[in-house]
């Protein structure tokens, strides 16, 4: 099967199909998280009282997670840059680091969540926790999804480098765009939920 415009730019758009597709998908994701943010704003402004995030949530852990995710964004873009420099070995190292840092993020979230559950704090307990678990839970699923794609590109998907390196580079770039978006969402989630 010949998938068109994976490497060549389409003459009418000036871009590869994959590039447009991933940006359109990210636009839809902005609406998804935006809808939840808007819900958060509505619930919070309508509530008689609202706790400060740092009175319930673990700010040091979340700050650490913020640093982890930002670092993973750097390793992700360095993975792509390594492919641009034709350094496949270096790509594998940076991509591996990206996946690893994603894993660290998930482990920290596991500890955060289990600590909450241990203290009898569940989504059903109050509105603050409901929106906290929903927003961070959905974000966590996106981290998992991004890690899955990155793992494929690190592992079995890397075969494509031998037969069509430019197509593989584009795939890594597009996966990177999704990963940066996941980081971007957290950059807004962290102060909103934990610090305000």
């Amino acid at each position, binding site marked *: 099967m010949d998938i068109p415009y994976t490497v060549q730019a389409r003459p009418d758009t*000036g871009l590869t199909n994959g590039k447009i597709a991933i940006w359109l998908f990210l*636009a839809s994701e902005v609406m998804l998280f935006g809808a939840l943010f808007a819900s958060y704003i509505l619930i919070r402004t309508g509530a008689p009282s609202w706790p400060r995030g*740092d009175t319930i949530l673990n700010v040091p852990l979340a700050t650490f997670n913020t640093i982890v995710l*930002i670092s993973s964004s*750097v390793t992700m873009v360095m993975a792509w840059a390594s492919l641009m420099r034709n350094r496949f070995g270096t790509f594998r190292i940076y991509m591996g680091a990206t996946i690893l840092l994603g894993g660290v993020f998930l482990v920290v979230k596991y500890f955060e969540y289990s600590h909450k559950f241990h203290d009898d704090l569940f989504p059903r307990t109050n509105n603050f926790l409901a929106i906290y678990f929903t927003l961070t839970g959905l974000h966590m699923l996106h981290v998992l999804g991004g890690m899955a794609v990155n793992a494929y590109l690190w592992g079995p998907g890397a075969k494509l480098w031998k037969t069509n390196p430019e197509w593989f580079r584009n795939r890594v770039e597009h996966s990177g765009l999704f990963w940066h978006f996941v*980081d*971007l969402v957290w950059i807004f989630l962290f102060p*909103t939920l934990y610090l*305000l």
Partner: protein
Amino acid sequence: MTTDHAADIDRHVRVYITVFIALMVLTIVTVAISRFHLPVHIAVTIALLVAIVKGSLVAGYFMHLVSEKKLIYAVLLVTVAFFIALMALPVLTVHNGYWIH
């Protein structure tokens, strides 16, 4: 993109490292400001401003938006317009409009 020479990629990498440092500093700033326990509306404004700067750095340099094609800008313009509408709607339903008390 594939016609980038080694020197171009080197320049890109230097930008990535600079942006990384900036993001780290801004993260520390975000947490530090929160310790001042400012009034909610000021705290929200500052937090959002810092987040927007951080987000712009990620979007502009890691996602290469500073050098993207017009079509992508057009898609994102529509996205931003609808996102603003999405944020404004709940704010406008409270007190019959945020700025009317």
